[in-house]
Structures are given as structure tokens and as C-alpha cells.
């Protein structure tokens, strides 16, 4: 049985990422990119899929675990019979301009109290077939080879490691045990000594700390927000700027169910939400990079916005199931690819045009080409909003008229008209957008609102509600304190509540799939935003604190949570959840909350609206 999902820590270099549990086992790492082949896949592929453990030789209690402040370096300390043993580990992100491997994982064991017995088990396996490497020792370096892909492991002091075999080592106060794993893909290996690797790790730490210093000091619950922003940045593929939804595939949304999806792709919607989150805390370079990715990646499909794309803006390969992979906690299937790519989702246009508008508000007027692209998206909305769509939740049954999608379509046209005021645009085109926007409003208000219950509904004619409607106060479709907005927030809270502060995204089981998924964490953060924007600031603050208390011990969130056990579910860590957390904090800042204490024990944080 694998540990709970939230037990895993994220190590990343902004090109790929590893997940490591509190036993010191790296159970997930795809190389050379987030969407590459897994070289350690035990998380969902069973023991035969490979792992890399470094930790105490005998079972030991974890007495401390956390990221070094404002860095991506993880520390885990165990108490053993002979003293404490600490594992410090990170991937090195900044390798440009130096003769360093593009992918390197640095891990160091130290024992401050006295000699401690430890063990290293290095068992890389590649891809779906979990192929063992051709392994050879070249001097002090173990080299594992699969064709043009090679992985090297070097340790100090030198240990003769055999793939798949545990090797005992003794860590002393004067001699930490350091190992560096480096990857070469279609290029020569860089044999790196462990001192150089450790220096690179420390250099990275200093850069992350500097990166974090730029984050707005006035943001409430800054520690949690910083960890979320760091996670978002670690999940951004630096070569193209693509925001990866999560570094994993097929972590189940219900244990033993079939709701296992591959999230190692980039959703334009997530990029747009990320733009808002990064702009809101003063990280403008990251926001601009997301916009650049949006423009570049959607180029071949314009004026259509694809639901999701690969890291380099291609369409993903067809979805399939990996043969013989048991899945996390025996929850198959494990999928590669994502069939949602072929869906029509109208809401994406609203998110993207809203992001473009926000860029303009932040002082980055659109280039003429960018505006032409956005105008093309607005035309597409004007052409197609009357058609049903798959909606934000990517339900794989029939398309329907989702009210949230129509609202986002309205937003797309509204934002296009706002941007058009500052750009050249034909009067005929803006007249059309205006007319379609008005028609959309009439359609939504007449067909998407349940007068009896006083709430917008999940789809036209439906009696269900939808937590995606919590974005309503952000849209300026109605005043944020209007009866319709209040009624919708209250209906979502009462009908989709999964035990405060959790919400289901739609009534459980209404998606054509067997089983009932967990509560959807981004929706709870959207509720914080909705409450804050509609003047219910105290409720918003309380809810936010409750949600922070639900984070894993490392401050990370998956996509969903089991309302009964409060264990995290679904792919992990999830960029959308962390972006929603940041947006919620920004909404609280705008609403002017008071003093707050981080529920995970951080020092009181001075808050106040700027």
C-alpha cells in the first residue's frame, strides 16, 4: 500500500518533477520532461515501475518534514535508534549557461547526532514496459542506459550501487552521504561530482529565495500563498512557458474507481487563471510567459482554443490505458493521453479573453497581433455560443447548454469589447459582439436561472447547481451583492456542500461515470473569492483558514479530497487548486481582511488592503 497522496513532496526543476514520500522514496519522475516516460513509476505502476529510495535502513519515525523557507528544497528528518537522520533533496532548476545536466536530482543524508545506518535503493525502470536498464559502472559512476537515454548516479562517499539492490551505507556526523542523479537525453552525460551538484542546489535555493522576495508582502497568509506560487512555477515548463496541470497521471479521484486521468498537459484555461494569480501578486514575468505560451500554442488552431495541449502546443496522442499498471492503491486504469482534448468547451474563451484584458489593466497593452488573435476568439464565441458544449468539468457524456459556459462566453464578448475600446476595430464587428453579448445575457437570464430557487443552474432546464458558478461575482454580469449572485452562492453552498469547507463540483454521481468522486478543492477556494467579493468577508476568511488547514503537511493540494477521510484525491499537486488558493488570497486582500494566523502554525501575518 502506498502512502496517502498528500504524503508526497514535490521536487522540480520547471522541466519535470519528482514525487518523494516521507520514507525517502522517489516514486514518480518522468524524463526528460513532465510528459516524458516515467523512470520511477511506482506511484501508479507498482514496484516493478521503479523507485529511488534513500533513507534509514530500519523503520524510523519522521520527526520533521518541510521545505526550506522560500525554496524548493525538501528536508525530512527521521529519529533512529542511533540519532537523527536528515534527507535534504531538490532538483536543480537553473542549469542554463553551465555545464550541468538538464535534469539532476541531488539528495544528501546527514546525521548530526552520531553514525546512522541508511540504505540506498536505486531502481530505474523506463516507460510502460518498465524496462530495466543496461547498467555499467564507469569508475565511481553507475550508468543506466536505454538507447539514447542515460541516467547516471554518483555518490560520495562512493557506494557500489546495483540497480534494484539495496546498498547499506553509514552516515556519520563528519561525513554526509550525498548522491546526484543526472539524466542525458540524446546528448552526452555530464559526469558531475557531488560537491558541484550540492553547490548548484544551494545556488538554486538562493535564486528561489530571491524569487519569493518579489511576492507582494501585503498578501494575506503569505506563507501558504508563496508555497502555492512556488508550486505553480515548478509546474510551469520553462522552455515553452506551458503550465502543466499536474505532474502525474491517473491518481484516482475515487479509490478503486475509474476516474483516473492524465494531467501532464497544459490547459489554456489554467494558463489564464495563472495569469490572474501571478499578476495579482506582482509576478508579471510569469504572467507574460503564460500569455506568450497561450498565443504560441493556439496558433495552429485559431480561432479555436483547444481544451488542452502538450507542453509544446501539439495535440496529445489518443488516450489509452497502460497495460499491466495497477494504479495508485490498486485503482486502475493508468491512462496516457487525455480524450478531453477533442471536446468543445465554450468557457475557455472567456478565461483567455479575461486574461488578455487583465494584462492590459496591469499595464501590458496587447500587440496588434495579439489583439487580432483575441478578436478572432471573440468572433468564434459569437458564432458558436448557441451550441451545447462539454463544459468546464469535461464530462464525457452528451454535451448540454452549460450555464457556466454561457456566462464565460458573455465574459469573452464583454472583455473583447472592453479591449476594443483601445484598439482599432471595425464598427460592424463591435456592433455584432454587442448584439451577441446582449442576446447571451437574455438567454442566460431566461433559461439558466431558476426563479423558484433563486439560483443559476448547472445547465438550461436542469435542477442541478454547479460550483463553477461561483465565479459569478468576478464577471460583473450582475453586481456582486445582487440577489441572483447571493442566491447562487447560497444554493451552491447548501446543495453541493461536502462538509465544510468542502464542495462537490456538481451533484455527486451526475457525470455518467460509476462511483462518486471526492470534493473538488478549487471550488472551495472559488467560494472564498465569491464570499469576499460579495461582501461576506468574515465568512470568506474563516473558510480560507479552514481550507489552509486541509493542505498536506507540505502545503500542497491535490485536485480533490475525500470528504470522509480528508485524504487528498486526484492528480497531485494540482496547479488549478494552487492558483485558486492564490486568487482567493488576492480577493481577501482586496476585501480588506484583518489580522490572520496561519493555521499551520506560522507567525501572525499582518494583513490589510493596500
Amino acid at each position, binding site marked *: 500500500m502506498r502512502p496517502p497522496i498528500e504524503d508526497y513532496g514535490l521536487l522540480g526543476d520547471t522541466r519535470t518533477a519528482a514525487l518523494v514520500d516521507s520514507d525517502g522514496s522517489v516514486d514518480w519522475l518522468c524524463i526528460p520532461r513532465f510528459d516524458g516516460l516515467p523512470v520511477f513509476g511506482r506511484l501508479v505502476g507498482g514496484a516493478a515501475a521503479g523507485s529511488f529510495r534513500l533513507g534509514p535502513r530500519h523503520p524510523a519515525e519522521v520527526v520533521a518534514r518541510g521545505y526550506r523557507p522560500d525554496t524548493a528544497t525538501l528536508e525530512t528528518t527521521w529519529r533512529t535508534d542511533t540519532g537523527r537522520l536528515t534527507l535534504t533533496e531538490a532538483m536543480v532548476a537553473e542549469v542554463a549557461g553551465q555545464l550541468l545536466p538538464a535534469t539532476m536530482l541531488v539528495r544528501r543524508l546527514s546525521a548530526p547526532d552520531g553514525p546512522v545506518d541508511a540504505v540506498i535503493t536505486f531502481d530505474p525502470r523506463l516507460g510502460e514496459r518498465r524496462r530495466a536498464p543496461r547498467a555499467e559502472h564507469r569508475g565511481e559512476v553507475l550508468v543506466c542506459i536505454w538507447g539514447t537515454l542515460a541516467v547516471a548516479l554518483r555518490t560520495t562517499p562512493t557506494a557500489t550501487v546495483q540497480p534494484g539492490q539495496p546498498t547499506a551505507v553509514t552516515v556519520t556526523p563528519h561525513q554526509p552521504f550525498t548522491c546526484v542523479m543526472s539524466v542525458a537525453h540524446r546528448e552526452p552525460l555530464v559526469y558531475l561530482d557531488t560537491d558541484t551538484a550540492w553547490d548548484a542546489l544551494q545556488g538554486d535555493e538562493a535564486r528561489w529565495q530571491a524569487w519569493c522576495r518579489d511576492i507582494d508582502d501585503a498578501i494575506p497568509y503569505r506563507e501558504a500563498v508563496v508555497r502555492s506560487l512556488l508550486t505553480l512555477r515548478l509546474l510551469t515548463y520553462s522552455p515553452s512557458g506551458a503550465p502543466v496541470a499536474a505532474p502525474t497521471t491517473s491518481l484516482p479521484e475515487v479509490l478503486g474507481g475509474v476516474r483516473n486521468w492524465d494531467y501532464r498537459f497544459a490547459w489554456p484555461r489554467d494558463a489564464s487563471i495563472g495569469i490572474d494569480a501571478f499578476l495579482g501578486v506582482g509576478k508579471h514575468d510569469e504572467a507574460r510567459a503564460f500569455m506568450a505560451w497561450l498565443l504560441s500554442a493556439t496558433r495552429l488552431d485559431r480561432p479555436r482554443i483547444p481544451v488542452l495541449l502538450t507542453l509544446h502546443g501539439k495535440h496529445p496522442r489518443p488516450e489509452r490505458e497502460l497495460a499491466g499498471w495497477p494504479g495508485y492503491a490498486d485503482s486502475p486504469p493508468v491512462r496516457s493521453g487525455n480524450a478531453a482534448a477533442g471536446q468543445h468547451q465554450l468557457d475557455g474563451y472567456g478565461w483567455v479573453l479575461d486574461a488578455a484584458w487583465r494584462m492590459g489593466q496591469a499595464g501590458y497593452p496587447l500587440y*496588434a497581433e495579439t489583439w487580432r488573435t483575441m478578436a478572432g476568439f471573440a468572433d468564434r464565441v459569437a458564432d458558436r455560443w448557441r451550441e451545447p458544449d462539454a463544459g468546464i468539468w469535461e464530462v464525457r457524456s452528451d454535451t448540454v447548454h452549460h450555464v457556466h459556459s454561457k456566462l464565460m462566453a458573455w465574459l469573452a464578448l464583454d472583455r473583447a469589447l472592453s479591449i476594443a475600446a483601445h484598439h482599432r476595430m471595425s464598427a460592424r464587428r463591435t456592433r455584432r459582439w454587442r448584439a451577441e453579448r446582449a442576446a447571451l445575457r437574455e438567454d442566460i437570464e431566461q433559461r439558466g436561472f431558476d426563479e423558484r430557487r433563486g439560483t443559476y443552474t448547472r445547465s438550461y432546464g436542469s435542477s442541478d447547481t454547479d460550483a463553477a458558478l461561483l465565479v459569478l461575482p468576478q464577471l460583473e454580469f450582475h453586481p456582486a451583492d445582487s440577489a441572483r449572485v447571493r442566491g447562487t452562492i447560497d444554493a451552491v453552498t447548501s446543495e453541493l456542500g461536502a462538509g465544510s469547507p468542502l464542495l462537490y463540483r456538481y451533484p455527486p454521481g451526475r457525470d455518467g461515470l460509476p462511483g462518486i468522486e471526492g470534493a473538488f478543492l478549487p471550488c472551495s477556494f472559488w467560494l472564498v473569492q465569491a464570499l469576499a467579493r460579495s461582501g461576506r468577508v468574515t465568512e470568506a476568511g474563516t473558510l480560507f483558514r479552514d481550507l489552509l488547514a486541509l493542505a498536506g503537511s507540505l502545503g500542497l493540494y491535490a485536485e480533490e479530497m475525500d470528504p470522509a477521510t480528508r485524504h487528498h484525491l486526484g492528480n497531485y499537486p494540482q496547479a488549478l487548486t494552487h492558483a485558486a488558493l492564490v486568487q482567493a488570497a488576492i480577493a481577501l486582500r482586496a476585501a480588506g481582511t484583518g489580522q490572520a494566523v496561519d493555521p499551520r502554525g506560522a507567525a501572525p501575518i499582518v494583513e490589510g488592503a493596500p
Partner: protein
Amino acid sequence: MDWAGWAVFGLLATALLTGLMIAAQLSGLSRLDLPLILGTVITPDPDRARAAGSLIHLLVGQGFALGYAATFALLGQATWWLGGLLGVLHGAVALTVLVPMLVGVHPRMASERAGPASTSVLEPPGLLALNYGTQTPLVTFAAHLAYGMSLGLLLGAR
């Protein structure tokens, strides 16, 4: 050496190559946009970059046409098939040497090794420029084939 032919037909062939690449972009085959890539060496504004990049591309194309004209002169013949062979070689060099080399010299192009400090927002081309779409190598070969064949045909006709 046919200098007048080189001057006129080099321009025509480059215009043809550029037109084919743009047609490939418009038809959704490739995101390889040479005028944009070349022009963003000078400016980040895509529209200005395309204008500058188109001019740079015409000059570069004219330079390559000089090599074609010199080869034809050395071999004593200019035919469409000889031009086509040179075009295939040219396309291969462009994909395997010239475009990947941009990563090292282009101020606004990220590399596959880019990290958090990178502010370069232009995506790297990757192996055979495949990052710009799986059809990119085919499109590039086809465009260079057309470039070489048109040069061979036109210079041979004089």
C-alpha cells in the same frame, strides 16, 4: 555565373519559399514562422518583427541563392532536379543546423534547458523543429525543395 539571374530569381525563389511556409502556417501544418523568429532578434513586437524578419529572410534567401547559382555554374548545368537535390540538402541543413543554432544566439528564444530565470518567451524549435508541429520537417523540406527546383528551372531557362 549568371548574376542577373541570381538577383532576380533568388528573390523570386525566396518569396516562393516564404509563401509556402506562410501557407503551411495558415493551413495549420506548422508554427514555424521564420520572419517572426528572425525579426524578434530586433524587436519583441510580432508585427514589427515580421516586417523586419521578412526583409532579413529575403536577404538570407538571396545569400543561399548565390550558393545555388555558383553550384550550377560549377557543374555547368541548372536543372529542376539538380535544384531539387540542392533544396533537399538545404532543407536538411536548415532543420538540423541552422534552426537549432538559433537557440544559442537568439536573444528572445528559450532553450530546452531554460529554467525559472529565463525571460525568453520564444519557444525553442527542438529536434528537427518538431516543437513547432509534427508536420514541420515535411513542410520545411517541401518549401526548400520548391525553392531549389524553381531556381534550377529559372536559371536553366536562361
